[in-house]
């Protein structure tokens, strides 16, 4: 009896643990690959090597037309080509497409695509795939692209390499939006599902990019092998054999892995303090690209006293923009000259734009002019208490929100901060329930069409409540212009009004820093965190440094 009891205690534990460990191990140790898997692997030698890339999250959706998270896009972009990409000046340049244009009346658009691309299963990539993709997007209202093609009527593959679109109105941004934002998917694969939206695309991937996803271990890694031929690459094929995305939910661990050499590259932009730290490391190379959007404050003009332009101007002059950029962003941002036409886009930029000057005295004068005074002598204007909402999860904005509040106090204006959890923040912005909104746009790449969302009376991200007939007229002029030269005039006028009336207070354009091991060379960084250094062109041309 007594022996039994003593053994019982240890047994009890041993039984459970061995059961758990055995169950766990059995499930986790991979089986030896069978012959059918092994055959392909032998072909890829060690010549190009393996590039390990850090990412912060698992792939949520493998269907590029449905999923639009940044981390998903890094992987799907390598398989489903866009027709256009960006150059350093954030201009749309050929990728899958070679040429494009509009008819005289602007109601027809055409795109000519390359004839030498094929899907990794051997099918040729043709104009039919393009038509299939845009038809799916339009009829099923898929993703963000659906919102950009309001002018789309129909598409037709007039040859294997030429697609013609019929538009219901003149839309100068149509081709650029479709060309850049819409990844082309293989019709012969995606048409298998009842609807494209329901197609999970979570196995047997087919790629027309430089790499194809071959193996997924959720929570750990996404293994992509190079394709045999990729005409868009420098040498007709990628240099590296394998690209592995490894998932690190915590950026600190991710940076440690980069330093220890387990990662060769980090796909997400580094926080400013890390960026500074990493740039002094000889074994690491950093790449800096600008944002395609901007960070800003918007003043809710549906509410008093923000409906008065003097008050908005007073607020605009009560911010030390340079301090915000230097301190909150550690200098990793450039001035947008308080213009919605930011320096990221040289072709649109207005050289004459000037940043609001930080001048608390001027702010006080403007407030007095607007009819406010400080009767109780506490240094603050009476009856003014503006609530500023922002997403408390955004590290940059939570940093500068405090600066803005303290600087406004210098000018006698009281701002109360409401750092909100993201969900609440989105709901409040959606209901336009705020005095001041602090946030940022990730990508505003086509001013001609995008500005409509921002400043037209019914634009769904018109947070400030802009309703200005002159603005509306300029928006229409810009949208229907078919060339950059024609669009530039109305856009400059529009931007000047926005600055003058403080319809949108553009604070800075962020610069993203990416870090990679110095053992690799040939990365092609592109603007925005979306394209980053992990865009198809970049990963197709990267190779081991000598």
């Amino acid at each position, binding site marked *: 009896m007594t022996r039994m009891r*003593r053994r019982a205690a240890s047994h*009890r534990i041993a039984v459970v643990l061995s059961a758990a460990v055995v169950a766990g191990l059995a499930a*986790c140790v991979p089986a030896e690959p069978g012959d059918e898997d092994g055959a392909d692997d032998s072909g890829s030698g060690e010549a190009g090597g393996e590039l390990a890339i850090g990412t912060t999250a698992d792939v949520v959706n493998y269907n590029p037309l449905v999923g639009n998270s940044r981390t998903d896009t890094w992987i799907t972009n390598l398989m489903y080509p866009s027709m256009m990409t960006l150059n350093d000046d954030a201009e749309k340049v050929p990728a899958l497409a070679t040429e494009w244009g509009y008819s005289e009346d602007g109601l027809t658009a055409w795109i000519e695509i390359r004839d030498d691309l094929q899907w990794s299963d051997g099918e040729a990539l043709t104009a039919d795939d393009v038509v299939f993709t845009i038809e799916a997007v339009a009829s099923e209202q898929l993703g963000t692209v659906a919102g950009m093609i309001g002018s789309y009527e129909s598409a037709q593959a007039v040859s294997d390499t030429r697609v013609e679109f019929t538009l219901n109105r003149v839309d100068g941004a149509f081709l650029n939006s479709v060309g850049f934002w819409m990844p082309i998917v293989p019709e012969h694969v995606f048409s298998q599902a009842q609807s494209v939206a329901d197609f999970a695309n979570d196995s047997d991937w087919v790629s027309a990019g430089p790499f194809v996803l071959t193996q997924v271990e959720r929570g*750990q890694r996404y293994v992509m092998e190079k394709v045999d031929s990729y005409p868009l690459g420098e040498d007709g094929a990628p240099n590296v054999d394998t690209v592995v995305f490894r998932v690190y939910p915590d950026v600190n661990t991710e940076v*440690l892995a980069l330093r220890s050499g*387990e990662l060769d590259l980090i796909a997400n932009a580094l926080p400013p303090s890390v960026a500074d730290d990493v740039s002094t490391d000889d074994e690491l190379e950093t790449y800096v690209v600008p944002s395609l959007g901007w960070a800003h404050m918007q003043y809710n003009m549906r509410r008093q006293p923000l409906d008065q332009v003097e008050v908005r101007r007073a607020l605009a002059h009560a911010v030390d923009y340079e301090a915000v950029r230097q301190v909150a962003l550690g200098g990793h941002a450039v001035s947008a000259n308080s213009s919605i036409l930011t320096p990221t886009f040289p072709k649109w930029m207005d050289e004459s734009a000037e940043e609001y000057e930080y001048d608390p005295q001027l702010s006080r004068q403007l407030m007095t002019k607007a009819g406010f005074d400080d009767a109780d002598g506490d240094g603050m204007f009476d009856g003014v208490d503006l609530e500023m909402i922002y997403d408390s999860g955004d590290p940059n904005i939570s940093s500068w929100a405090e600066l803005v509040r303290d600087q406004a106090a210098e000018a006698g204006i009281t701002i109360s901060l409401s750092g909100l*959890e993201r*969900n609440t923040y*989105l709901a409040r912005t959606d209901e336009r329930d705020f005095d001041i909104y602090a946030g940022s746009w990730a990508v505003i790449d086509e001013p001609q069409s995008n500005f409509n969302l921002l400043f037209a009376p019914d634009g769904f991200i018109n947070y400030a409540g802009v309703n200005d007939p002159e603005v509306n007229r300029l928006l229409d002029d810009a949208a229907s212009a078919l060339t950059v030269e024609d669009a530039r005039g109305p856009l400059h006028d529009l931007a000047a009004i926005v600055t003058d009336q403080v319809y949108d207070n553009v604070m800075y354009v962020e610069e993203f820093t990416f870090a990679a091991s110095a053992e690799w060379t040939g990365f092609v960084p592109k603007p925005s965190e979306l394209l980053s250094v992990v865009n198809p062109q970049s990963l197709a041309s990267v190779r081991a440094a000598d």
Partner: protein
Amino acid sequence: MALLRFAGVRVLRGVLTLWFAVSVTFFLVRLLPGDPALAIASPTMTEEQRAHLLAEFGLDQPLLVQYVTYLGELVQGNLGISFRQSQPVLDILLERLPWTLILTSSALVVTLAIGLPLGVLAATHRGGAIDRAVQIGGVVGQSLFVPTVGIALLYAFGLGLGWFPIGGAIDSDVYGLEAYVSMLRHLVLPCLSLVVLQIGAYVLTLRTNLIDALGEDFCNVARAKGAPERTVVWKHALRNALLPTTTLVGLQLGFLVGGAVLTETIFAYPGVGRAIYESVGQLDFPVMQGAFVLLAATVVVANLITDLAYGVLDPRVRAT
């Protein structure tokens, strides 16, 4: 018969615990101010799209109907569909569960393997330097903040010394023995951080119990009969001290599994705990809820197995 009755009671209790866990999370998610419906619907949606989406996830039904449906589905092993990934929650989580099991059970094994001797050592050297060191070490371990320990371990052993890999649970393309080695190498640091965290509770409890037992009559009798102190400690006292210590395993399991959230996140270990962290960021309530239910089920099943195994081996327990 007694054994069957005992088993029946324990199973019933386990089921009850699970039901409680499920119900609590279900009503918490639906009654608290944060609106899950808001989480799936984006601001750009029209009223119609939103209503359609809510209907798709069954969120337009009365609460009780939703509850009954949820329980019914749960019994069939269906934890719902993720808001973010159009994939069943169970599929997402089952992929993660083995890693959590490996991590927590290995942490438990190591804790006991180190903790028991340490507890005995402290108790037999009561009041001495070893005792003090073990006690203080145990208390300090319990009080450490997991992520800080994690980063420190990664910094020292991953980056500095390069002994262990940083992040992940296994290398790719490794098979057979190599796979086990790779798995072990990835396991060491996260396991260590969990051991540091919970070993104190075991050591301190065992020490107290052992000291109590050593003062009991049966130990004095054994000593009087001329049994060497070694035998008294290991044979007579430890046997009695282990009994209350094992109940601690049951209490600590929940703590251990909960601690996996922070550990797995820092070490980029692909377990269920990390799935919770990720689903918080994405406001993916079905996954959050499912992950909790799964972790609770793990604890319940582990407790049940130990209870039953114990009941079979030790008839005394059946009476309680």
